[in-house]
Structure formats: structure tokens, C-alpha cells
């Protein structure tokens, strides 16, 4: 392949092809492949789902069915930071809803929404297992506990 053509190849596509090759013929590959594809693309575009279906020899309707069943999978682009507000039982009884309200106001989005500047995607989750620190939230992999509405703005400001 000439150098010019090389530039035309999308590195993400190459990665996806590698993932698909690695799982070829393996049982139960669909969910891990979707997880890896989402890591590569940040979400699961329709074309990627079609390619995964072809690659794993699974009807695309089933790929779509699985992708829409699990909460982890996103079919639309996500913000740079994923903010997960916990509304588990412990957080619920310790004022999680008020924290959520504040975050919604700060960001101007609701559950599942992404801010216009693409900085945050807001998700409500059932429990992140940090109940001792309720109310809690998670930004990317970082857990924030013992939240109160007035602490929210300061934490959000730390994220570009």
C-alpha cells in the first residue's frame, strides 16, 4: 500500500478490525467486542454495529438488540467526562435527589444528556457501591462522596 493510501485508513477502524480478529470464532464474544468498540469510538455508531455483526456473523438486529439492552452502551456520542449520579437507596434517603437537581441545573441537562460544549454526559445510576459515603457520584472512574448541593460546582470546575 502506498503512503498516501495509508493516511486514508482510519486508525479506529484498524483497531476494531484487530478486536474482531481477536474474537473470531470465540463464543460469547458480542458483549466484550461491543465494550472494546465503545472504548475505541467513545460510543457505538450504527456502522460500527453493522461491522461487528458481519465480523462475528451475528444478525445486525441481534447486535442492535444487545446494544440497546445494556445501560453501558451508548448509541450517541458522549461528552468528554461521564458524570454518574448515584440514586441508590442510601443516596436516595440521604438527599441524592437534591444533589442531582443541582447538577442538572449546573449542566443544563437531564439523565442521559450531554452538555452543548461536550464536557459532560450525565447519567443516573442505581448504585456505585459506595453507600457509606452517600450521597455520591462518579466522574469517569473517580468517586465523590458526602456530597451536598453546594459542593457540586467546585467539583465540576475541576473537569475541562
Amino acid at each position: 500500500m502506498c503512503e498516501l493510501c495509508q493516511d486514508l485508513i482510519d486508525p479506529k477502524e484498524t483497531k476494531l478490525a484487530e478486536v474482531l480478529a481477536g474474537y473470531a470464532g470465540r463464543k460469547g464474544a458480542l458483549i466484550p467486542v461491543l465494550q472494546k468498540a465503545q472504548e475505541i469510538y467513545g460510543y457505538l455508531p450504527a456502522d460500527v454495529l453493522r461491522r461487528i455483526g458481519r465480523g462475528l456473523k451475528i444478525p445486525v438486529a441481534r447486535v442492535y438488540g444487545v446494544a440497546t439492552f445494556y445501560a453501558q452502551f451508548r448509541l450517541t456520542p458522549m461528552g468528554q467526562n461521564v458524570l454518574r449520579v448515584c440514586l441508590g437507596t442510601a443516596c436516595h434517603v440521604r438527599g441524592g435527589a437534591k444533589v442531582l437537581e443541582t447538577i442538572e441545573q449546573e449542566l443544563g441537562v437531564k439523565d442521559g444528556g450531554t452538555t452543548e460544549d461536550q464536557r459532560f454526559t450525565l447519567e443516573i445510576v442505581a448504585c456505585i457501591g459506595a453507600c457509606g459515603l452517600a450521597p455520591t457520584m462518579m466522574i469517569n472512574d473517580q468517586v465523590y462522596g458526602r456530597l451536598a448541593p453546594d459542593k457540586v460546582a467546585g467539583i465540576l470546575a475541576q473537569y475541562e
Partner: protein
Amino acid sequence: MKTMKTLLDPCCGRCTHTPETPCRDYVRCQTEGPLCHDDPACRMERERLLRELKTEVGSQKQAVLFCTGTGCASSGSNKLIEIMDAEIKKAGLDVSVSTRPTGCHGFCEQGPIVIIEPAKTFYTRVKAEDIPEIVAKDLVGGERVEHLLYVDPTTGQAATTYANAPFYAKQHRIVLHNCGHINPERIEDYFAQDGYRGFAHALQDMKPDEVIEEVKRSGLRGRGGAGFPTGLKWGLCRQSAGDKKYIICNADEGDPGAFMDRSVLEGDPHSVLEGMMIAAYAIGADEGYIYCRAEYPLAIKRLEIAIKQAEEVGLLGDNILASGFNFRIYIKAGAGAFVCGEETALIASIEGKRGMPKVRPPFPAQQGLWGKPTNNNNVETYSNVPHIFRHGADWYAGFGTEKSKGTKIFALTGKVNNTGLVEVPMGMSLREIIFDIGGGILGGKKFKAVQIGGPSGGCLPESLLDLPVDYDTLVQAGAMVGSGGLVVLDETTCMVDIARYFLNFTQKESCGKCTPCREGTKRMLEILVRITNGEGKEEDIETLEKLAGVVKSTSLCGLGQTAPNPVLATLKYFRHEYEAHIRDKQCPAHACSALLTYTIDEEKCKKCGLCAKNCPVKCITGDKNTPYRIDASACIKCGTCMEKCKFGAVVRA
């Protein structure tokens, strides 16, 4: 002779153990070795390393333990270790003091938690600026840093060691024994605590049927919800014909308000692997899967490390400990669906399908993963197993009640002073757990109810606080042990709102396969929302009860069959709250905002205007001469005025 750097190194050239040339005594050799030869030098090396790992009373070295579980890590405990390492070096203590990252202590509320071994000094809410003081005062000076000690909120007394903090004093930690004490990322720490001894014993001294018999005798029941006898389950899977069998560990801990599995996975991952290995040997399986929530990245990381280490020393792989037994474990990250806690849905998910439950029978023990006989237990169940084989079934059956043996971990949360993980013998009363261990209700409020067992469980009132907590008693009372969430509710919690909360959860998590769960939970939720909004109708309670009965008796899987429990239990014990919402349009707990009215008490009002200034919808009018008034038609009942008023002049009714 070369000295051993870690416990895993061979003591001398006479040790031949590798995964390819396994030695049957490898595990026992870790703590009692060398066994194949007699050499005082080799023995001394092993003992030296063991002492370092255990830092027991009388040992020369001190260890500073930092909790790095999710709770404490979120409060910055990993950074604290770096600072401590630097401070120790600065003070020239690096020969006699070591630091150790550990798993969760279960007292996340008080994190970051730091423990000094062997003295067992227990420091809570430690900040970076406290580290030099700990070094100077405690490690060098041998004195406790008083202001970092945990003070019991009820007695006002400081606990000198973790063992005498009331939170821990009444607990009996079997499964959580290593959590918070060993480094979960080092298999040698686990070996030092007699790790894998139970597995080696089962593998080498017992036939598979004897292993199953031992588990049956221990009385262990599944810790994931329904409490099915574990030995019986293993036996069914062993009896199923099949050339290939699987072991699954359900680590999809999805109950909102439960995090014991997370703590065990993060704090003592090898105990889960050991339990799975014993089960695999008993059943005749050679492959195991751990299905772990993707929301638990740290747990997945530590499991990956633990599996790799077990493979490197030959405890996973082929011909384990020269026994001919082969076993491998793989991790599957869940993708976010609560229903995958149901075993047939979990299996569908591992197979790469939508996590929709299948009709049983056939049970997974007959036809499970890829149609092969499969045994599925949850994290806590598996991590109980090594202890049964280390200490014997009789020892284990010595804990608990007649039909519920051993201990159970509860996640004590909500409106209680001490929140965290609590491991107690089965049969302890709710009162002891909430008031003795939990230290009573937060802020001196009045206890109203305790929610047990998550979305499948129920709420129990004060009159049932003396019930012993075991599988059968709780079911009779309309709740269940479930995964072990214990959420304490006080007088400010509305019980209709709690029922609505759980229904909202199960309704969202319904897979949609069967009609009663998909459509029925939706209609139940709509009714509950209506009631909490003050739009309830007289016949709503009857409709709720009818729907609850049908959803319970006709749904396909456990999720639907138990989804109505929070509604039924609150209707049973707190029916008057439903009636107050429907008939009087009042929320007795003053929690349902649609049913609240805010007014300003003219006598108490000092006309400062703070309420009007902060009102988000500007519905408060008044000035220095006119009394402040809230326009009820515009008020959104956010309660800001009440929070801001310094004179208690805003009244909520």
C-alpha cells in the same frame, strides 16, 4: 545460599515447584515449609517473611495499613500512602516500618482509614497534613494521635483500637477477616493467612462427593438472595450428566444499597477464587467465569491481578498441585443490567445475548452456560467456602441459627450513625445491628423502619426490631435477607415514597420479556406516583394489592416475582401513610413535596427578606413594613426558604 525476596521464591535449589512441575505440598509449604527437606536456614527465611506479612503482636516491625477500597480511595487514600512513604524515609524508619495498601474495612463513612499494626491503632478521616504527626507521635514516639481516633457518637468515648470500636466489637468477621488487613494485590499476603489451605485440603484429602457432603453439613446457604442450600446446589450440578461443566461467580452486585461483594472482591479477591476452585473440584468443572459489574473497575483490576498470580504459582491451570485437576477462571465484565443478577439472565449475558431470563426448569445445574451443567453462586457464598475447609463444617455450623448457619455481611446505610459493612452471625436481632453496631439514628431522630433486602425485600417497622435476622424469619415478616442491604429510615422518610423509589428501580430494570413484570410494574409505579403527588384515588390501594399479587405469582423470574415486595410490606406495616396521602392529601413524613405547604409565621418573622431573596421562583413577597407571604400557587416547594431562614419562621405542613 540465596535469600528469599518474597514468600513465593523457592527457599533453595531443592524446591522444584513450578506450574509445569507442580509439587503437591506447595500451599502448605508456604506457611510450614520447607517440607521436602529439613534445613534450619530455609525455615528461618520463611518464618522471617511470614512475620513481615503478618505483623502480629510481638513482631519487631510496624506496618501502616491504608484502606484503598473505593470509599477511602475516593477520599484520597492512595495519595496518603505516597506521603507516608516519604515521611517514613525522612524519619529514617524505612527498615522498621512498612506501608501496606489494603482492601475495605467496611467503615467507609470514617474514611480514609489508617491502622497501625501490631498495636491495632485505628485512625479515621486521616488527611495529608496528619501524616507527619502520625509519624512523629505514633511511629517514633509510640503515642496515639488522639484527635484522629474514632469517637463513638453515643458514648463520646474514643476507641483506642479498631477491635474496641463499638462498630467492630459486636461483629464476627469470617468472610471479611482479611479485608482491610492484607494487601489484596499480593498472593503471598493471602498465603500468610493460611490462604488456599482449604482448597489444598479439599483437593488432596477429599473425594468430590465428600467435599459436597462437607458443604451440606456446614449448612451454608446462598448469600445472593433466596438462600438456597449451597451443598445441595453443588450436588445437583455434580449429578448432571455432561462432559463439560462450568462454574460461575455472580459478581453483578446490583442491589442499590449493597456493596459487600465489592468489598470482598477489592479486599480479598483470592478468597473468591479459592471458593470457586473448591466448587469446581467438587462439581467436576474445568472452567469458571466471574461476571462482574462494569461499575466496579477496581474489583475487576484486583481480580485480574489475583487470577494472574494464581496462574503463575500453578493454582490455576493444568494438573493443579499434581492432582490431575485442571481449572481456569475468566472475567466477564457486565454491561449494566440489574436483571443479570438472575442466573439464567446472567448466563444469557455471558453467552453474548440480551440478559433476558429463561424459564426454569431446566435449571442451570442441568443446562446452563452453553447448554452445559453450570453452578452459579455469588461472591459472598464462594468466599465463605475456604473457611469451611480450613476450619471444618462443624466449626462453621457453630455460628448462626438452626436453619441459617454462619455469618452474613450487611450493608448498613441510610439514617444511621455508623454506616458501613457489618458481618454478624445469622440470628442477631435488627435492634443490635442498628443500635449497637450502627450507633442508632442519625441526628437523634426517631427510627421509623428498616428496609432489608433491596428491591426484592421489604420494610420492617419498630415493632419487629427484635426479630432475629435469618432467611426464614425475614421472609415470614415480609422482607428477605436478599443480598444484605439494610437501609435505616427515620421519621422524615415517607414510606409511600420508599415504595415508589423501589418500584421505579425494578420497573426500569425489568427486561421486558414477560407481560406482568413489563406492564404490571409500570402501572404500579404510576399509581404510586399518583399517590405521592396527592392525586391518589380511594380504590388505588386495592388495585395496587391486586396487581402486586398477579405480578408476584405470574412473573417469569425472581425480579418480577419479588418486585411487589416493597409495596406489599409498606402496605402491611404503614398502610396509614398511604391512607393519609389519599384521603387527607397529607404526607405524614413531610417528604412528598407535592403535599407540602410552606407558610411564614408572622410572629417569628424578622422581615430580613432572606427567604424572598433566595426563592428560585420569586413567589415570596413582603418588605420591612409588609409581612412576608408565600404565594402557594407559584411555590415549587423546594424548601430553600426554610433552609435559609435563621429564625425558624418558615413553617412546613
